[in-house]
Every structure is written in C-alpha cells, then in structure tokens.
C-alpha cells in the first residue's frame, strides 16, 4: 500500500496587488501517494503556479498562505525550521519550469552547476567525487553526448537539452516529488515528445512522484495517473485519469475535452459557448459559482451559493450543484 507523500488540506492563499487582496487559491485539498503522478490542468491565472510555489514554500512576499496545511511525508511544510526546509526544498521536492534558463546559471558551465548542487546536498563530498557523480548521473539519465553537454554553457545548448539539464539538476537530491510547471510549453512538438519520454523513464526508474502541470488537457493526460482541473484557484474536478477523461462530470472539463481538436475525428466546427460574447471570461458573482453565466446546466442556486467538492464516484470528485 503506497503511503501518502503529499497532502494539501483546505489550502487558501491570498495575494496583495495594488491595494486589494485577491484569493488566488481557495480551499484546495488533494492527496498524492508515493509513486503516483497528478496532472493539474488550468488556464493561466487558475493558481497552478502559486500552488507549486506554496508547496515549495517560495511564495512571493505579496502572497500568503492564510489557511490550511501542506503536509509532505507527514511533516507540515509551514511548520519546519529553515534548516529542515533547506534539506527539502530543491532536493526532496524539486521543480522544473517552462523556462529552463530561469534555473540554469548563465555564467558557469553545466558541470559546475550540477556539481555544486551535489556538493550542497552531500556535505563533505570532495570536488573530484562530485565531478564523477555528475558524469555518472548524466550517463544514467542517458543524456546524449554527456562529455560535450557537461562542459557547455546553458546558452550553447538547445531548448530541449537545457530542459534536460534542468531536470538533471532537479534529480540531484533524489527527490520524492518532482513538480513540472508547464515544462514543455516552450519546446517544439518533437522536442516536447522527447522530454515527456525522458520524464516517463525517470518516473519509473527513479520512483519519483510527479506533479505535472499544464494548461493543455492532452499534454497533462500523457504522464498523469490522477487529473485535477483547476479554475480560479479552486479544484473543480479531480479523479483518476480514466474517470475524468472518459466520464467527465463538470461542465468545464467537458468543454475542455470538446475544444481539443482531434485529428482522428471528422473535421467540424468546435463548440462555442452559448452565443455569449467574451464567453471565456467567467462571472463576477462573489457568492455563486463562477460558471453560472456560461454553464448549460445552470440552476437558481448556482447564482447564490458556491458549490463544494462532492464525491460522484469512487476516486472521483466534482464541484457542482448537480451533485448535491
């Protein structure tokens, strides 16, 4: 039986911008077991990046966790000391972003950066030992041309290779959890496919749990066991991949599935939302469901009361008044 690796319980994160306070993450709860991977789908502004920053405890000073807990391997992330956090952040929990250059040091060669990470993680290891570890690691990860890559600067590498180096850096501390925040967004299709297969192998060989974040449902489905759909800081549907994709319950999930062009199906117009202009923007109602203006199943209660997450099936939850 897999143990619980990560628990997010009633997480609420607010942000202060231009004098006002906005709720960025609203009462979010989910669990991730060891070896499992969770795909998180959400458009920009849905809170998915703030979520990953909250887990790593690297939130901007303008953002604050005001409620809830993030528990990693039984430990409350926000209850840890700086010393304890140092061992977790970047090592036990690692992250890769859509822009590998945000992680890679522009003025030192790849070998130096990975070696320094190894020496920080393993205090006491000698420089020569660490260099050997770098080469060993690159060989295990089956990096093409490891000798050449290792002595290059980040800018000399292609986008795909930069991302692989960023992944290698993330793996230095033998992480239990790897967060990939839109990691293939900036990559070409064929290079993204390479990266996805690279991550799939790592998932299996290194026994790493993955939080795989994307704005694209097809991309998300490739590496995930469970899928969570996020919108405006809330989880609106979560379940096993099979259940969410074959039997979606939320209007928005169904819409995401409908608007994905499928080259194997007959060409026809993609469904527009019920004739409303600016249809992709959701409602301003403070107390109701943010989809009440565009949802085809809308009921009077939807304008007044925000729905809560309800179980609709084994391992399948949805936030909608239909399931009350």
């Amino acid at each position, binding site marked *: 039986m897999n143990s619980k690796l990560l628990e997010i319980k009633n997480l609420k994160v607010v942000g202060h911008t231009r004098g006002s306070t906005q709720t960025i993450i609203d009462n979010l709860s989910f669990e991730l077991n060891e070896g499992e991977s969770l795909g998180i789908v959400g458009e920009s502004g849905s809170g998915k990046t703030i979520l990953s920053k909250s887990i790593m405890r690297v939130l901007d000073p303008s953002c604050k966790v005001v409620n809830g807990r993030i528990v990693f391997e039984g430990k409350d992330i926000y209850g840890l000391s700086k010393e304890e956090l140092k061992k977790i952040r970047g090592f036990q929990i690692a992250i890769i972003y859509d822009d590998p250059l945000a992680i890679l040091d522009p003025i030192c060669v790849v070998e130096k950066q990975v070696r320094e990470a190894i020496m920080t993680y393993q205090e006491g290891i000698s420089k020569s030992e660490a260099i050997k570890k770098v080469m060993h690691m690159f060989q295990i990860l089956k990096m093409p041309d490891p000798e050449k890559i290792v002595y290059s600067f980040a800018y000399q590498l292609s986008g*795909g290779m930069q991302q692989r180096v960023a992944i290698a850096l993330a793996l230095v501390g033998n992480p239990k959890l790897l967060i990939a925040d839109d990691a293939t967004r900036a990559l070409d*299709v064929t290079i993204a496919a390479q990266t996805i297969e690279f991550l799939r192998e790592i998932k299996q060989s290194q026994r790493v749990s993955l939080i795989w974040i994307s*704005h694209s449902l*097809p*991309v998300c489905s490739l590496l995930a066991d469970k899928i969570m759909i996020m919108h405006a800081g809330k989880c609106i549907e979560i379940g096993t991949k099979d259940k969410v994709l074959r039997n979606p319950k939320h209007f928005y999930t169904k819409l995401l599935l409908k608007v994905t062009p499928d*080259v194997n199906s007959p*060409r026809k117009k993609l469904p*527009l939302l019920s004739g409303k202009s600016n*249809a992709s923007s959701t409602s301003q109602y403070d107390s109701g469901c943010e989809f009440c203006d565009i949802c085809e199943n809308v009921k009077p209660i939807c304008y007044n009361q925000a729905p809560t997450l309800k179980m609709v099936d084994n391992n399948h939850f949805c936030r909608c008044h239909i399931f009350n």
Partner: protein
Amino acid sequence: MPRRSLFKKPAYVHAVQGVSFDIKKGLIYGLVGESGCGKSTLSRLIVGVEQLTKGKIIFRGTDIVSLLKNNRTRKQMCRHIQLILQDASASLPPNMRVAQILTEPLEIHRIGSVKERIKKLGEVLETVRLNPSILEGYPSELSGGVQQKINIARALMLDVGVLISDESISGLDPVSQAEIMNLYLELNQKNKLTMIFIAHDISTVWFLCDVVIVMYLGKCVEIANNEDLFNSSLHPYTRALIKALPTIEKGLKNKGMYVLKGEVPSPVTLPLGCNFYSRCPNPAKDEECRTKKPALKEYKKNHRVACFKLKD
C-alpha cells in the same frame, strides 16, 4: 541576413531557402513547422517587415517586393494583407481606448466619414462577437482572447483580403483558442477571407486549413490538401510531427510518445544534403540524402514532397 559580429566574419542565417508556393483566394493555408523552420520569417517577408534576399512575392498578378520596400506603397499593401501576432497585448497600444484602436486604421488611410467609421465599427464588432461595452475601456483590462479579437477586428476594419496569423492562438487558453479558430473559420466561409495560418501545433492546422505546407529548416518539405496530408503524409518529418502530437487517447492508453532523435541543425551552417538527414528515421537514407538537396516534386496530384526515398 548577415549577423554582425565583433571579430568574426558575419554569419548568415539561412532562414528561408527557395520556398515557392501559390495561395489561392478564399482558402486557408496552414504553414506548420518547428522553431527555426522559417515560417515566421516568411510571414514577415510577405508583409514587408523583413527584406528578402532573392525571389518574388506576386500578389494579384503584381510582384510586390519593390512596393514593400517603399514606406508609402507598403502602407497601401496594409489594406490588403494584415498580420496577427502571437502576443495579443503587445500589438495593442496600452494608452488608447479600444474604440480609438479600432477606428485608427480608417483614420490613417482616410477612409469614410466619422459616421461611416462608427457604422463600420458596429458591423465589425458584431462579426467578431465582441461586446460594445469594451469600446470605452483600455486593452490591458481585457483577457487574451478578447485582445486577440480586437486585433482581428482592427484588420477587418480595412476589409483586408488576406489575413496572416502567426501563432495568434498559441498564447491563449484552450477555450479562447477554440473561439478564435471558429472565428477564422467563419470569416473564411462567410466573408471569403483568405488566410495563412502559421502554427507549430499541427492539430490546429488540421482543424482550420484547407492546404498544409510543412517546413523544416527553411525549406518546404511537403505541400498537400488537408485530407491527403493527414491521411497519407509522405515526408518522414510530417509523419513525425503528426505522431508527436499529444492526444487524450495516447494519454488514456499510457502510450509512449514517438520520439524523433537528435536536434535540429543550425540554420547558420546548413547540412550538405537534405536538411532533415540527421534526424531522418528512414532506414533507407543513404549518400544521396546526405549529399544532395531533394527538390519539391509533385508525387501525387496536388501533393508535393521533397524526399529522395519515396516508395512508389
């Protein structure tokens, strides 16, 4: 285009090499390929933002290359061909209200009276399904999808005949992407708008385009009708692009992605032979492929491919 260097000889980036194709009125053409293939450069050449080294761009029977070099005549071309770019907000002046942004083209080209301009504005807003309530506001207050609709509306104010979309939906969320794609389809079907739709995501090209042009490292490798390309693509790169597409089906089946090995060669030092040689998975590739450049040949009716190793 020479790159200036401090000490070395300037290097040339061979962005577009010997590309030839016709655009027929009233159709949507897809230009697909990954970064470095030259598709964006091509779009900039057509509107005159980049200068070409050699070749012709013939619009309605006239070679417009010299027209594009001259500022005054290039301005005239804006009434016929417009470009919509990826970053919707960067194309919109932040200090102008939406109404001003939309009527500006008519002011610049001195078209119509004030009354006629307002009427045109109303018509265009309806065509793109934008709520008139946005007219008094500024673009920064609006979502990416709405901003992009404003860009499209602005082009439609001039009744352009040709619209070039350079990754105009790539930066939008999936629902906005669908809206804009539907809009393009409608504009093509109802208003007979000719379009060149540039994308790296071949699934959007599949949805929208009648004819597809696949580019790799500055060269056209395949040109065919939509059905022909997707049902029976011939070039190994086209096949790789289609196979590399993330789909929900692949996700549900936990299928491994098809992986094309290797990296794209640099556009500064081109390979000796076929540009695709280093990554071509065809076991039959040989010395001819490595040393000679395949020309685009009509393999089947209206289906051109550049490859030495096509099976007959």
